[in-house]
């Protein structure tokens, strides 16, 4: 564990880790809610993959900021304004079409970032990315297959998938805004540049959209990424209440 404090790296690990943790929680909410048992297991698998990534990244944040705090501290004992995830991760999805759209966007974006991170100058980030690329490739594939199946299915399923994409799209521009921490780390060869992920994102979404007979909207660039600065939507507080409730109620709980 490095005794020196690397605040940028710590902040960056929280960003990537919180994206995975919060998205994982949203996927876990579909346990007992998925349309088929087989998909319930698939969604739980994806949630577990992301949780695994979150654990390593939050642990790394604790060593990088010099505090030595554990993954549990970051997951359970931070306030809402200390979370650094993008808004897309906390977005509530109550329809399967919305969930598939959110997962497709999230996985496509994250995979493009992870591919950059396999060449990171930080050994831990590079190793994590090499492992996570395989996982997230499957997540993207899973979501893309469902998007095509629904979009190119019946008129009813097409409308549901289209509505799902419309539900998610307002949260897409934020994904490609580079926070100043991300800019500095990308310049140093440690982090990934979100702006650099956009070309691949648009290409993949274009391919899936064409196969799914869905019109994929253009990305209207945005200037800020509020989630990266700890400003969240109203969906975040109830999510954290559920995520953190047990740990905060019973200080001696173990898991």
């Amino acid at each position, binding site marked *: 564990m490095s005794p020196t404090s690397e605040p940028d790296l710590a902040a960056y690990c929280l960003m990537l880790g919180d994206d995975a943790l919060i998205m994982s929680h949203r996927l876990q909410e579909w346990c007992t809610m998925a349309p088929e*048992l*087989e998909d319930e297991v698939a969604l739980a*698998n994806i949630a577990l993959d992301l949780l695994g990534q979150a654990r390593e990244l939050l642990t790394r944040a604790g060593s990088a900021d010099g505090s030595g705090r554990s993954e549990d501290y970051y997951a359970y004992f931070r306030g809402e304004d200390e979370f650094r995830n993008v808004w897309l991760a906390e977005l509530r999805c109550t329809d399967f079409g919305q969930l598939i759209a959110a997962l497709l966007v999230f996985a496509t974006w994250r995979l493009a970032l992870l591919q950059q991170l396999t060449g990171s100058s930080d050994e831990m980030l590079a190793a994590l990315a090499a492992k996570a690329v395989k996982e997230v490739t499957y997540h993207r594939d899973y979501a893309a*297959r469902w998007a095509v199946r629904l979009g190119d299915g019946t008129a009813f399923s097409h409308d549901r998938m289209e509505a799902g994409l419309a539900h998610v799209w307002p949260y897409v521009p934020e994904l490609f805004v580079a926070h100043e921490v991300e800019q500095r780390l990308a310049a140093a060869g440690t982090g990934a540049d979100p702006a650099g992920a956009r070309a691949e994102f648009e290409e993949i979404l274009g391919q899936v959209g064409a196969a799914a007979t869905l019109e994929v909207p253009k990305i209207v660039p945005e200037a800020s990424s509020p989630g990266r600065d700890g400003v969240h939507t109203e969906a975040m507080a109830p999510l954290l209440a559920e995520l953190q409730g047990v740990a905060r109620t019973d200080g001696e709980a173990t898991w």
Partner: protein
Amino acid sequence: MSEPVWPLYEVFVRGRRGLNHVHAGSLRAADDQMALHNARDLYTRRNEGVSIWVVRSDLITASSPDEKDPFFDPAGDKIYRHPTFYTIPDDVPHI
């Protein structure tokens, strides 16, 4: 509205190179490709497999339990059909 039920598939997983595919269980899927992916999610979560086969259950022709006696019992007392009269070296695996 009655819910249409997806067809049943049987799943065969090969654990390691050089071994046979072994029946792992069954699942429901809308088509072959979905069956393959569902099999990956249901039956290889704990690193069980390197290869998966799926086949629609209604494509399998199976022996009937009613015919069990004429089918299998006559083989029971013909020990000379079993290759038990020579020894297998300890270092020959999977036999």
